[in-house]
């Protein structure tokens, strides 16, 4: 089944220790500096440079400052619309979350392979997105229990629940509450992974069809290549949408914790 020279669509997600750190360990756990860690560091570096370059505070903002202010204002509006005035204090967290996810999604799509550097999408791994989701979920739990105490459990009984359904609704609400971190993490990770696998599969079509002659290359390879370009554009859209959805859902969950519907 597996032919020679076939493109392996999963190879791009391989985590590899870099700079000979594969033997580093603390208490028996390997802490090698991997390509995932490197690209997360690059993401943070690019994000820091982006924000630092625009945070000049000039009265008449330049182009760069407008970009940074636009991004911050976008998150500010998102929280104001979904949480209300109490959401102001979550702007730093949601801003970091949104821009980290956005930057690492976009950095993973850059065509740096032309220069021999293979970008790694940190958000295409469940461990990374899972930690982000756990972070959001624990903030919701901590804020909810701190502000409302045990009254927070009334989240599981929505307003207007008929009495004869009281045995069922809290159970369903509890399940839907507990599934939240998984759905948050899974959505981001699968959306990023599926797009990259799709691009890789299409590229394997192009390579194999071009190898088997001019006719197949023209009939199969060229349309696949056109589709790849279109999918690349779609992936840039998906990178933005998934970052936005993650931030939006986190702010909705924070709204539950703050205002307890």
């Amino acid at each position, binding site marked *: 089944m597996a032919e020679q020279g076939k493109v392996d669509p999963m190879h791009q997600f391989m985590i590899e220790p870099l700079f000979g750190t594969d033997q580093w360990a603390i208490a028996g756990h390997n802490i090698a500096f991997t390509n995932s860690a490197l690209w997360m560091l690059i993401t943070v570096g690019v994000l820091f440079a982006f924000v630092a370059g625009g945070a000049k505070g000039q009265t008449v903002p330049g182009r760069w400052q407008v970009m940074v202010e636009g991004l911050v204002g976008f998150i500010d509006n*998102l929280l104001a619309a*979904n949480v209300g005035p109490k959401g102001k204090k979550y702007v730093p967290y949601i801003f970091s979350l949104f821009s980290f996810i956005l930057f690492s999604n976009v950095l993973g799509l850059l065509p740096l392979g032309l220069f021999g550097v293979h970008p790694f999408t940190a958000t295409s791994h469940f461990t990374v997105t899972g930690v982000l989701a756990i972070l959001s979920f624990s903030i919701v739990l901590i804020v909810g229990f701190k502000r409302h105490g045990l009254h927070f459990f009334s989240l599981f009984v929505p307003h207007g629940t008929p009495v004869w359904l009281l045995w069922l609704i809290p159970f369903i609400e509890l399940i839907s509450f507990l599934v939240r971190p998984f759905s948050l993490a*899974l*959505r981001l990770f*699968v959306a990023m992974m*599926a797009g990259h696998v799709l691009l890789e599969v299409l590229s394997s079509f192009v390579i194999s069809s071009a190898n088997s002659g001019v006719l197949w290359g023209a009939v199969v390879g060229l349309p696949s290549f056109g589709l790849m370009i279109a999918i690349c554009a779609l992936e840039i859209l998906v990178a933005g949408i998934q970052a936005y*959805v993650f931030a*939006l*859902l986190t702010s909705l969950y924070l709204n539950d914790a703050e205002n307890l519907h």
Partner: protein
Amino acid sequence: MEPASAKLIGAGLAAIGAGVAALGVGNVFGSFLESALRNPGAADGQQGRLFIGFAAAELLGLLSFVVAMILILVA
């Protein structure tokens, strides 16, 4: 049937879920556009809900992708 081929057939069947989720996502955006054209003034305020609906519909399609990947690579 051999287990390996059953796995691949199962992964192919799971891919149907992606197509059905495409119907769902299309329905979300289609209904939004339909009602946004009726009342453009109210459309901008509903974009958050648009993306919540999109996220919920898309998640189920992505789950079918996960099932297919688990069948091919893990199981």
